């Protein structure tokens, strides 16, 4: 057992981690943030994707004890009250979600992409979400939504 401190969506959090507590488990079971999902627990499906120190990670593969002091961003931290983030709004407008299980991971991967690359090509979007598996949509609406979000973000920056 070890006390772990994390900044989660900008707020300091402290919890007790057991050795087998993954970052995903801590977020879901101890901090009540159930946006990130446990899909495969193998790092293959991407439904647990969050940002750790600004970079996208599969949180199911990270023992929580190893990231004490880290800065974590989850899908819960994106909206400003009722106002969705540009990526979330683009997903909503573009019907880029069906069952929704993959959506938080998709959105966090998209956020990470747009943070690094404001003008991605369609192929770069494909690469960015290649670790996020969706079994409903066929990906096309998701890729289009991310490109749409990029356009909105660029337009917003120009205002």
């Amino acid at each position, binding site marked *: 057992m070890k006390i772990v401190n994390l900044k989660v969506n900008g707020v300091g959090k402290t919890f007790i981690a057991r050795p087998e507590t993954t970052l995903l488990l801590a977020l879901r079971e101890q901090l009540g943030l159930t946006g990130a999902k446990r899909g495969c*627990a*193998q790092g293959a499906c991407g439904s647990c994707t969050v940002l750790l120190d600004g970079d996208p990670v599969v949180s199911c*593969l990270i023992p929580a004890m*190893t990231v004490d002091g880290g800065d974590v961003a989850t899908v819960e931290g994106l909206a400003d009250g009722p106002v969705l983030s540009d990526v979330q709004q683009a997903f909503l407008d573009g019907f880029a979600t069906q069952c929704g299980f993959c959506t938080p991971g998709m959105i966090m991967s998209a956020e990470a992409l747009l943070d690094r690359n404001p003008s991605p090509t369609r192929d770069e979007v*494909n690469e960015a979400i*290649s*670790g996020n598996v969706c079994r409903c949509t066929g990906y096309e609406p998701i890729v289009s939504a991310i490109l749409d979000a990029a356009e909105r973000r660029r337009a917003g920056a120009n205002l």
Partner: protein
Amino acid sequence: MLTEVHVPEDVPAAVSLIAAGATIIGGGTLVMPALNNHGSPPTELVSLRRTGLAGITVTGSTVTIGATTTLAQIEHDPRLAILHPVVRSIASVPVRTLATVGGNLFARQPYGDLAVALVALNAKAVLASQEAPVELPLGEHDPATAGLGKRAVTRAGLEERDTARAGLGERDTATAGLEERAPVTAAEERALVTAVTFELTAPGAFRYLKAARRRYNSASLVTVAATITEAGGVRVALGGVSDHVVRAVRVEQALAGRPLTEETVAAAAQAGLTELSPADDAYASAWYRRRVFPVHLRRALLGL
């Protein structure tokens, strides 16, 4: 089950824990999938995250990459442009943020494409143990270094061995790009890869081509990495065609002193077929991998 996760602050502390039997975890992308999905006997992990082993230095043409440097860090370092196609062919973005260079040496085939590239680049692994540090060439089986190779394999087999002991995986996975596999015994020394180092090649001299089922995030069907040396030779390493990284010695011998033409490369591929021992797996059949190999050797070396 995991009974302890050590997070040592330096290499000597990590080496002591390894010597005491703890299993190394770098980025966790190899160790954690096994631990997440299976019951396991009590397992202690030693995380390398805070050991200060991450970092890339380029001095002249000499590149040294710390063992816990992530694939993403390579991908975003403009000095390592020759490795960008390699790391971008491996796994997905959120996995590359975690996966480390040191860990990739121990990925079981048909994964571990960076190890294939490093063998082709004649890279060396720097090892730390409770004795003096040593450097080991990857992919060599020179009898003179057999003892060292055995030690490297000891380390190389570490994660797999612990996994095997935990009842989670296979014992006999070839690792670290070392062709020579030695049996691992409990008495053998346990060492830690702290860095890999290699010389940057002349522009265009390093070739890399990976055949996979999808453009991104898919295991290797056949991976070809090659360095064309100034002396007119070619150093070739292959992934996806065996249970370990293959240094394609017969391909190299067939091409030694000859110009790279369709004819010479086709003949070298024929010679190289005898070095392959591909598997049937979920990605491709052994038959298909043998068919793909000559095509991708040609494309890697000739660009056509």
